[in-house]
């Protein structure tokens, strides 16, 4: 497979192609949309818009899937690299490339996006072509963030991602969509601007002193750190602000419940599955490698670890008392992403790998949860947990899926959620035993809030007459959920291929940050020599 892919030059064109395909699809949609809007038969036009969007994103997924095989897990170099001049006057280049971390994030994105089209098939009925065009542009933006190796290109992609989501929430959202979308936009935009300033500072500082041309190359910045500790701390602060809001870390999380609740189903899914990962990805790719000294400063690290642990417990406790299921899932994201942050800042190979696994499996499980909420919302037009009860008898397939996905979110061993949580905790325990112990109580609360919620939705007596005639999942919805369920089980039972693909990048990150921060290299666990006499 790998040989075949390389023989068609896959490595050379795949990343630009992944960026271009959705944009081209969006143009196609807008052209066809403006034509069909004039036709009397709008339904026909909407249908073709859905088909185009789905087709484009499936194609995107298939193209990206080749990366799974073409990627060389052992190599520490950027893979599928692309490098060309973009704005030479300011030293801005169009540089793409992926490592194991970006690989899995890209595959997660291209896997989720076609499902989002399926999930919006019937729930979006107005301005359908525009909606899907925005989703396609969003895809390019998100993929660009994962691929960019030029700081400026990264920033452009970072903002490209923001705007379509603003419109998706603001136009197709729920009742308080204007409030939610503006909150989302301003909340994430403001710290992003701080990050822009920091990027400009970095680029100019690293520039050629003779010509004054800035240099935004990520590799150069990582390889040649020139910052004074105080400057590094300020710049880290700017990056931290941008990423912490996106994660979202406690206490910068309050945009999330509003955005999730008001966004249309696919919007919630994209937000939870992919966009939240931008924050943690940013920490892994930029904030830590660029400013290892500042990030690993004992106080900074201590504060972030503390906030992560607070986020884990706080998110779970607040999730427990939510009357609105979407809000419950939103707060559960705060809790899950707390585990990711703990894993990243504990900075051991296991904890970082675990953080990456949670990023992937949270994307799958929470995405699936939002799809399921969307499915039931389309039927009953209520997200309130109390408007259900006992519906497992009416919609058994839905009940099976909701239970399975909830269990995966709870972190039941054998399903995907467990792997990441276990690795994060087992890896973080050595540097932070107390924090990790507290974080581990999160597994109890997670069981409490989700099981209680699904009990009130699926079980208990079927006492509301309007719930007695809810139709079960149709074939489109089954087709939508099946890939998610397959991945949930696959990642739980056999995550080794994924872990192996990320290991080189995670190890490189840990080593580089430890070296940059002047920390002692984390030795492998204290293996007690197996004595011959001790073995029976």
């Amino acid at each position, binding site marked *: 497979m790998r040989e075949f892919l390389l023989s068609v030059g896959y490595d050379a064109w795949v990343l630009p192609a992944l960026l271009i395909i959705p944009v081209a699809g969006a143009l196609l949609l807008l052209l066809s949309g403006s034509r069909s809007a004039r036709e009397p038969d709008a339904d026909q036009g909407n249908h073709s818009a859905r088909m185009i969007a789905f087709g484009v994103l499936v194609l995107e997924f298939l193209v990206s899937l080749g990366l799974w095989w073409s990627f060389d897990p052992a190599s520490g170099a950027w893979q599928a690299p692309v490098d060309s001049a973009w704005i030479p006057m300011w030293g801005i280049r169009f540089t793409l490339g992926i490592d194991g971390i970006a690989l899995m994030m890209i595959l997660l994105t291209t896997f989720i996006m076609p499902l989002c089209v399926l999930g919006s098939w019937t729930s979006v009925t107005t301005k359908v072509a525009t909606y899907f065009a925005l989703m396609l542009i969003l895809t390019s933006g998100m993929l660009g963030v994962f691929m960019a190796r030029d700081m400026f290109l990264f920033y452009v992609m970072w903002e490209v991602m923001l705007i379509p989501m603003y419109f998706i929430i603001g136009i197709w959202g729920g009742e308080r969509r204007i409030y939610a979308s503006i909150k989302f936009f301003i909340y994430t935009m403001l710290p992003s601007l701080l990050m822009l300033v920091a990027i400009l500072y970095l680029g100019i500082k690293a520039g050629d002193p003779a010509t004054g041309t800035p240099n935004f190359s990520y590799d150069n910045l990582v390889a040649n750190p020139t910052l004074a500790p105080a400057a590094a701390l300020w710049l880290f602060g700017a990056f931290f602000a941008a990423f912490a809001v996106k994660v979202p870390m406690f206490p910068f999380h309050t945009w999330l419940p509003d955005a999730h609740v008001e966004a249309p189903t696919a919007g919630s899914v994209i937000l939870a599955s992919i966009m939240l990962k931008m924050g943690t990805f940013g920490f892994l790719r930029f904030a830590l490698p660029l400013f290892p000294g500042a990030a690993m400063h004992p106080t900074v690290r201590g504060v972030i670890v503390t906030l992560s642990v607070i986020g884990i417990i706080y998110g779970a406790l607040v999730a427990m008392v939510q009357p609105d299921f979407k809000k419950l899932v939103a707060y559960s994201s705060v809790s899950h992403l707390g585990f990711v942050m703990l894993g990243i800042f504990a900075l051991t190979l296991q904890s970082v790998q675990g953080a990456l696994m949670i990023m992937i499996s949270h994307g799958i499980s929470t995405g699936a949860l939002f799809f399921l909420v969307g499915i039931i919302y389309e039927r009953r037009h209520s997200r309130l947990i109390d408007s259900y009860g006992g519906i497992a008898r009416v919609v058994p397939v839905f009940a099976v899926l909701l239970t399975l996905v909830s269990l995966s979110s709870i972190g039941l061993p054998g399903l995907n959620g467990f792997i990441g949580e276990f690795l994060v905790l087992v890896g973080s325990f050595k540097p932070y035993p107390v924090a990790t112990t507290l974080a581990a109580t999160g*597994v109890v609360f997670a069981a409490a809030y989700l099981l209680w919620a699904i009990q009130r939705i699926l079980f208990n007596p079927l006492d509301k007459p309007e719930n007695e005639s809810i139709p079960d999942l149709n074939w489109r919805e089954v087709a939508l959920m099946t890939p998610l369920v397959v991945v949930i089980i696959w990642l739980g039972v056999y995550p080794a291929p994924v872990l192996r693909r990320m*290991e080189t990048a995670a190890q490189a990150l840990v080593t580089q940050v430890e070296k940059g921060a002047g920390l002692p290299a984390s030795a492998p666990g204290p293996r007690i020599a197996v004595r011959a006499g001790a073995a029976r």
Partner: protein
Amino acid sequence: MMLLQVASQAHPLSGTVAEWVWLLPVLPLLGFVINGGLALLGLRANGDARPAAGRHTYAGIVSVVGPLVLVLSFALAVAIFGAMRGAHMEAPFIRNYFDWMPVGDLQIGAALQLDQLAMVMVLVITGIGMLIHIFSVGYMRDDPGYPRYFAYLNLFVFFMLVLVLGANYPVLFVGWEGVGLCSYLLIGFWFSDKVNADAGKKAFIVNRIGDFGFLIAMFLLFAHVGVLDFRGVEAAAPSLAFGGWLVTAICLFMFLGCAGKSAQIPLYVWLPDAMAGPTPVSALIHAATMVTAGVYLVARSAFLFSMAPVAGLVVALIGGLTAIFAATIGLKQWDIKKVLAYSTVSQLGYMFIGVGVGAYTAGIFHLVTHAFFKGLLFLGAGSVIYAMHAAYHHTHRHEDAQDMRNMGGMRRFMPLTWVLMWIATLAIAGIPPFSGFFSKDEVLAAAFTRAGQSTLADAYLFGVPGGTVLYLVYVLGLASALLTAIYMTRMMLYTFHGSNRTGEGEQQHLREAPWVMTGPLVALGVGSAFAGWLNLPAILPLGPRHTLDHWLEPVVGAPTALTAQATAGGGEHSAGMEITLILIAILVAVGGIVYAFARLKPERLVPKADSPEDEGFGLVLANKYYVDEVYDAAFVTPTYQLSRIFLWKGVDTGLIDGLMVNGTSALARGLGWVGSRLQTGATGTYAWVLVAGVLAVLGAVTLR
């Protein structure tokens, strides 16, 4: 070096039927897939999504597939057992099937480990599991959720086998949580009742609290020992500091997990509620197998627990306290399944006394005999409930089919069940020669002996010498034995003796269950009667002695010897002492039964509906010491209210979102409002301000 040589030699089991060990769990998994598929197919077959009342479309196939996979699994287990008997293996047989979590120096494989201890558990699980599956065919066949029921039951066996066959702690944990999941699903099997759904949720969450401890134990192991597979930890354990904080902490956290899974104080509260599930489930999961997983874990980690005498004391003390605590509650329960549930909690306490004092074989022995007689008791109770249900169903009355006050005199209608239940009762009460006598005696004798001389006796628990603690544990165990005899006799008297209180019309419909249900009862009855022969004490010249001791010697022999501070096989205590202990135990058991016969008068009972409330201490017991209420008031409600009022409404909506986030935007808007006051909208004003400004600037420039 030696290890390498040992590893490079072919294992005696390689190439034998033991290579098929993976099939043991896979067979029930296959059953789960088939039955689960049929359950979902059934929905389609019924046209609309609602399950029709009455027998399921695919009940016929399910009745074959469900038990068949267990029969095959059991047959395979027996074959592997045969291979093991001939192999004389010293090291466990380990097969790594694929890498599960390979991350740097944490290498966790999906590996199975077959050794003598695992084999005992496998035989119990598949053997008794098979009988209970067959029983379920009769008990559950007419339930609309029949395929779902068998799917869960098969899945449970799968996870239980993973639990006992896993070669490292994480794989064991997969089974550990998996059985918890199945327990959750089966307790809430009739989920349309809030009580059942609540009970399932409670079981899962309380178990999770225990699992938290188990996780911490694994983290400690990885952080300080560096490995998580049993072989590796076992090899490293002797080099840990004996009785040091690390090994003690690991063991105590692990025991927290055991307390959750095996329903020990303070986490026992879920098990009585778990009786909301179908009765065969109570027999299989909440008596014979799953709840004993904690005992298995301690025995499996004997190499750690033997290094931590303080942890051993805690385990034994908690076991003893749980035994007597649950036994007292059992005295006053009216629901026949609740009596058995508290009895299970109490008997699990005995097992923990056994493994806590380092007599791992005794603990496992009691686990095995308990699986037989408690399985029999639950299935017998199931038969009775089945008959009661059928009777009430005929007459369309809605009375409590599980309340003993509604039973009475059942021996006339169900003689076979009556006889078998008496066998089980005598076994659990500890009357020789039934199985429970031998295992319980061994546990108590071990506690007594260890109190005299062992590493535990030399240790201190909160300043109290270990010997004193163990004598206390022995007394607690003895007292529980007395109570056990009393409450079990009470249950038998009220259920089977005296006159019938079910009702005139109902009596005609009370009858013995079909053969598919009584068959397994008979098999379990034989086990309950004779399982004691597995491990006869040395002083009884009845046949092969110490069979189980010798069988488990390669696994737990060294830790046992370490705790007992004696070489394996050496004389532990004198024959005279042993006989005295046995006589005391018999005396206590007989005394309990005689007391119950003398004091309890089943004739005086009236049906539940007419019964008065309990008074005084009886009321406290009937209400289980109000522990659930205390937990609710102390933990559940405060957590909920704290989360709701303080964290959500206060901190989240109020402080963070209200004050900080929306506060910032309000501040910006406020400043904008102040600025906008300057905008009168009247052009004239602007012009005046403009002129004034120009004059001011000109003046400033000119006058400077």
